[in-house]
Each structure stands twice: as C-alpha cells, then as structure tokens.
C-alpha cells in the first residue's frame, strides 16, 4: 500500500474516532439534562391540552358531576387498550360527530350521543376513534400543537374556528379502514356485535347533509355499512349502571 493510501485511512479513522468519541463523551457528560427537556416538552403538551379543553369547553368523561359524564366514564373504562392511555371528552355540539385529537384525546359530541339508540353504538364510535390513536394516525402532532398555540385566544380565533380546523383534519381511507378494523376487534372483545355500528351508520347516512369525520373520505359508506352488517346482530349482554334513555334525556 502506498503512503498516500495509508494516510487516507489514518485520516478516515481519526474522523470516525472523533465522531464516535464525541458522541459517547456527550452521552455521559450531557450539556443539558435530557430528562428536563423531556419533562418540559410533556408539560407543554399538557398545557396545550388544558388550554384547548378550556377554550372548546370540553368536559372530561370521568368527571363525577353529572349522570352523562359518569356514564361516559363507564364506557371509557370498557373501551380500554393496554398500549394507550387516553382521555375521553364530551362536547356540547349538535354536530353528529366524534373525533380523535393528538395527545390522545377523543371527543364525543352531543349530536352523536343523541343519535345512538344504545350505549353499544357509542362504544363502537369510541373504539373507532381509539383505533386512530392506537395506529398513530396523527403524524402531525407537532404541527397540530403549534397551530393550536397560534389559534388560541389572543390571536383572536373563536372556539368555532379552532374546532373546524381540528375536525377537518381528515384521515386517509386506509387509516379509516384500519380504525374500523380496530373497532370491530374491540367490539368483538367486549362481546358486542359490530352490527351495532352498522345501525348507527345507516341512521347517519340518512342525514347525509352533515359530513362528519365519521363519514368523510370513507371507503364508500355503503361498503362500510356492509362491512359492519356482515356480522349478525346479537343483543349484547353488557350491563350498565345507567339508563341510556335517561342519560339522553338529560341532554
């Protein structure tokens, strides 16, 4: 090997050693505490979440204050996943819609609750939204967080505008299919026939002047209804501590 080649190799090794050495050095001698940075980030996320909940007047499902929130809390505990911790919120909006937001939030509107004849239908809705969270369909977590920050009071945005931006963030067809598949799996686990969701979809389809997250971009509403209708309808044996009709009437 000629001397130039040797020198090249020597230089190359020096660079590699310098790079790895510096990397390892700073791992063991951190300039800032990464735990602190992480905590700051997580606190920031929480802060944004609180601001949003406050602005849009969401009510957390576990609240012990009303019959409605207690009942929603009960449903939330049924629809659980060991991989994911989420918060369920109620929104006093007449729009027939439910949606998942970054930071593991699921929001259920008054409109969709009134549309559900049974709590099982609402469980299906929550399971579908949980599917979006579980499959990490929110890739733009940071962007959403930043846009919320920009939209918050002070910049003059109304709650309505913020809601519009949050809910028009539609998922792709593939993502909807994934969320549906997850919902089917979850409902089966709970001993609820996926046919309950087909019933809800049919009702929503009739009012198709409203295009909520649930119907939008979807792999054809008919296809979707038939997917859930494939499962024979069976009365679920789940028991609840509340009377669904009473809950609905309280709205």
């Amino acid at each position, binding site marked *: 090997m000629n001397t130039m080649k040797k020198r090249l190799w020597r230089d190359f090794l020096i660079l590699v050693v310098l790079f790895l050495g510096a*990397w390892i050095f*700073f*791992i*063991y001698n951190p*300039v*800032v505490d990464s735990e602190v940075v*992480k905590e700051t980030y997580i606190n920031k996320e929480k802060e944004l979440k609180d601001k949003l909940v406050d602005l849009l007047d969401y009510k957390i499902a576990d609240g012990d204050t009303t019959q409605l929130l207690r009942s929603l809390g009960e449903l939330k505990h049924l629809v659980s996943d060991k991989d994911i911790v989420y918060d369920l919120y109620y929104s006093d909006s007449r729009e027939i819609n439910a949606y998942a937001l970054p930071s593991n939030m699921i929001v259920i509107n008054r409109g969709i609750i009134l549309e559900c004849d049974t709590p099982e239908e609402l469980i299906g809705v929550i399971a579908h939204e949980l599917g979006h969270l579980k499959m*990490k369909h929110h890739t733009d977590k940071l962007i959403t967080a930043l846009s919320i920050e920009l939209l918050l009071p002070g910049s003059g945005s109304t709650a309505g505008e913020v809601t519009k931006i949050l809910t028009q963030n539609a998922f792709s067809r593939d993502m909807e299919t994934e969320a549906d598949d997850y919902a089917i799996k979850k409902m089966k686990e709970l001993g609820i026939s996926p046919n309950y969701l087909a019933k809800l979809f049919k009702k929503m389809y009739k009012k198709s002047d409203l295009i909520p997250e649930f119907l939008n971009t979807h792999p054809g509403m008919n296809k979707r209804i038939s997917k859930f209708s494939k499962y024979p309808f069976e009365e679920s044996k789940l028991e609840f501590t509340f009377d669904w009709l009473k809950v609905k009437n309280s709205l």
Partner: protein
Amino acid sequence: MSTDYYPIQQPEDLPAREREDAMGGYFMMFASLAAGLPLPIINLIAAIIYYHVNKHKSRFVRFHSLQSLLSQLPVSLLNAGLVVWAISFFKYEFNFDNTFLSYLIVVILANLLYLGFSIAAAIKARKGLMYYFIFFGKLSYEIVYKVKEDDEQIYRNNPPV
C-alpha cells in the same frame, strides 16, 4: 501503479478568475439559505452542479470544488440522520434521551467545524493557496492531481492514419 502527481499551481500562476471560482465552491453550502428552504439536500445538489460546471477550468479550481463537495457529504448525512430521528419523535414517542441529545450536539459541532474550515478554505482559495482538510483534502488531491496512466494517451495528439 503510477505515483506521479501533476504540479500544484502557485499563487502567481493563478488568474484572479480561477481563484474566485475555487472560492465559490465553498459558498455552495449557503445555497439552501438562498433558496429559502432548510433542506440539506439543496446544498449537496448545488455543490455537485458546481463541481461539474467548474471541473475543467483548472486543477486548482477542481481541487477546491471537489474538496467542498466531498466534505459536505458526511455533514449532509449527519444532518439527514438528525432530521429523521427528530421526525420519529412526533410520529412515535418523544424519546428525548442523552443518546439523541449527544448526537444533536455532535451534529451541531460538525456543522460549525465544517463552516469554519470552509470559510478558511475559501479565503485561502481566494489568495490562490491550497488548503487541505483532514481526509477530504488528501482525497481530493489524490483524485485531482494524481497522474492516471491513461491520462497521457487521452491528451496526446496523433498524426492522421
């Protein structure tokens, strides 16, 4: 294997135009700033284009633009790695740990070093001087100045046959 090298031009032999062209290669790292896009790939593309446009001007120009191009490769790779790693935080989990933090610091240092050496090299080139980066300087010298066996034939004029 031949170990002959072409002579290195001295400052007095280099016209101002060539010195400026040699210096220009180092400014390609600001290409993305000019384009207004924070994409490291733009710098790289600019450096590649610059090299191909200028490589026939003279060995001096070719050496400097090649050194600038080659030394940019690892820095671009490190930056790309950082971007991918950071994006994964928002797609998956925010795993901000010391390994990432340290990588971040090293990448920033690498960029600063690269910037510093490039400015130094640009100033030297402007003065008609060679300036060798560690590794990349030797590599560029080897590629540009080494006499390749078939070079002689390529540039030789032959009588008609």
